[in-house]
């Protein structure tokens, strides 16, 4: 099929034809929400195109046909839309990592259960197994709570953005965790400008930032967001030492960042308590300043600039940061 072929047997009925057209265009998109959003965009396009043609004297029916003709091959567009909108949201390497994480938890749980049955009457072994089991259970509970806390925070952030006319996307709001994950944040004064200076370690896989490693927390950067997870009792699969056991090849880099704190033009959305220095740091979902970060490998230091300005406010996110990192490292 080339251009859209409307049903010429029946009388022209605009809404019916428009629905038929958008159904054909979005036929390959699996997600219902995306399907309806894309359909709406094409509807708007058709309305605009028809309005132009009708101003030139065409009838509604002819204008619709001309607008459809201008669209091009409907099947080809449908395939293109399907390719884009049906992609897996979780990158393959992150998915592999999740599989590994849950496999380890599963194997350890089964082993512990077996040992517990076998050595029930050996007190020392029994206690050891119980303690390790409790540590693992506490970790799992805390991970789960941290995840749900973050989801609630993101919900309120989205509500705030909507009420105040800011545009955010789910995968662009991951910056909140950076300060939480940073090692020894400090406030410095330089050239009359105050900064919160943070340094943290990040693991890279194929030059994409996978994790930011802190002493007591780690964060996982995924396309769907970043999870900040406390790792009490020193147990966590994402410490720098553990990364060597990951199935993908990763490496550590040190990233430092300076965030001016005197340019805050937006209300603080959330406050997070840093357990290490007993201070409360303000964590902004909208960073008010352009991000300057330095990526160091060996003796070479590369400066990264990130973010974009809108209405005098700088917005940025770790996705663009990661993308820039990839770009600078030539893996684009």
């Amino acid at each position, binding site marked *: 099929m080339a251009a859209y072929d409307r049903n010429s047997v029946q009388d022209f009925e605009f809404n019916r034809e428009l629905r038929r057209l958008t159904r054909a265009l979005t036929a390959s998109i699996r997600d219902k929400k995306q399907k309806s959003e894309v359909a709406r*965009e094409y509807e*708007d396009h058709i309305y*605009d195109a028809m309005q132009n043609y009708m101003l030139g004297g065409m009838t509604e029916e002819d204008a619709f046909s001309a607008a459809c003709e201008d669209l*091009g091959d409907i099947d*080809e*567009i449908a395939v*293109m839309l399907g390719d884009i*909108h049906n992609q897996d949201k979780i990158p393959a390497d992150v998915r592999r990592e999740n599989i590994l994480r849950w496999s380890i938890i599963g194997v350890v749980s089964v082993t512990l259960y077996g040992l517990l049955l076998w050595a029930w009457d050996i007190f020392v072994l029994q206690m050891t197994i119980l303690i390790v089991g409790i540590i693992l259970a506490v970790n799992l509970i805390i991970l789960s709570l941290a995840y749900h806390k973050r989801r609630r925070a993101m919900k309120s952030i989205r509500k705030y953005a909507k009420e105040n006319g800011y545009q955010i996307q789910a995968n662009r709001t991951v910056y909140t965790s950076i300060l939480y994950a940073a090692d020894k944040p400090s406030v410095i004064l330089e050239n009359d400008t105050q900064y919160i200076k943070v340094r943290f370690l990040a693991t890279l896989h194929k030059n994409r930032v996978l994790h930011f490693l802190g002493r007591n927390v780690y964060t996982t950067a995924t396309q769907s967001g970043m999870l900040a997870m406390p790792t009490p009792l020193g147990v966590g699969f994402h410490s720098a030492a553990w990364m060597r056991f990951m199935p993908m090849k990763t490496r550590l880099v040190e990233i430092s960042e300076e965030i001016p704190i005197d340019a805050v033009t937006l209300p603080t959305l959330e406050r997070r308590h840093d357990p290490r220095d007993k201070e409360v740091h303000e964590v902004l979902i909208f960073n008010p300043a352009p991000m300057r970060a330095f990526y160091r490998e060996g003796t070479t230091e590369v400066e990264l600039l990130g973010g974009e300005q809108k209405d005098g406010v700088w917005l940025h996110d770790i*996705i663009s940061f990661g993308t*820039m990192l990839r770009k600078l490292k030539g893996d684009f």
Partner: protein
Amino acid sequence: MTINKELTKGSMALLVLSVLAEEEMYGYQMIGEINRRSNNVFRMKEGTLYPILHAMVAEGLLESYDAKSETGRDRKYYRITATGSLQLKVRREEWQVFTGAVNRVIGEGM
């Protein structure tokens, strides 16, 4: 004169980034602007613009948001991100190198 479809296809992202670097626009407006600036040389199949835009949003080069247009209708607008601006700079440079090289090659035979 109409331009080979493949040539236009390869440069669509650059064209989109270039027009969005100056103004936030919705799809139909973008098509009009590209046609106007190119004196209708790039008369693209309009429906193929949206998959390109959506892919660029997924790559973080663009962002989309809903807003009312001048006519009062709700529209999905697109704007360039910082990554997109960086990408535009890189692609412009690539384009200069590419066209310069092609010109030098075809110039030799003329």
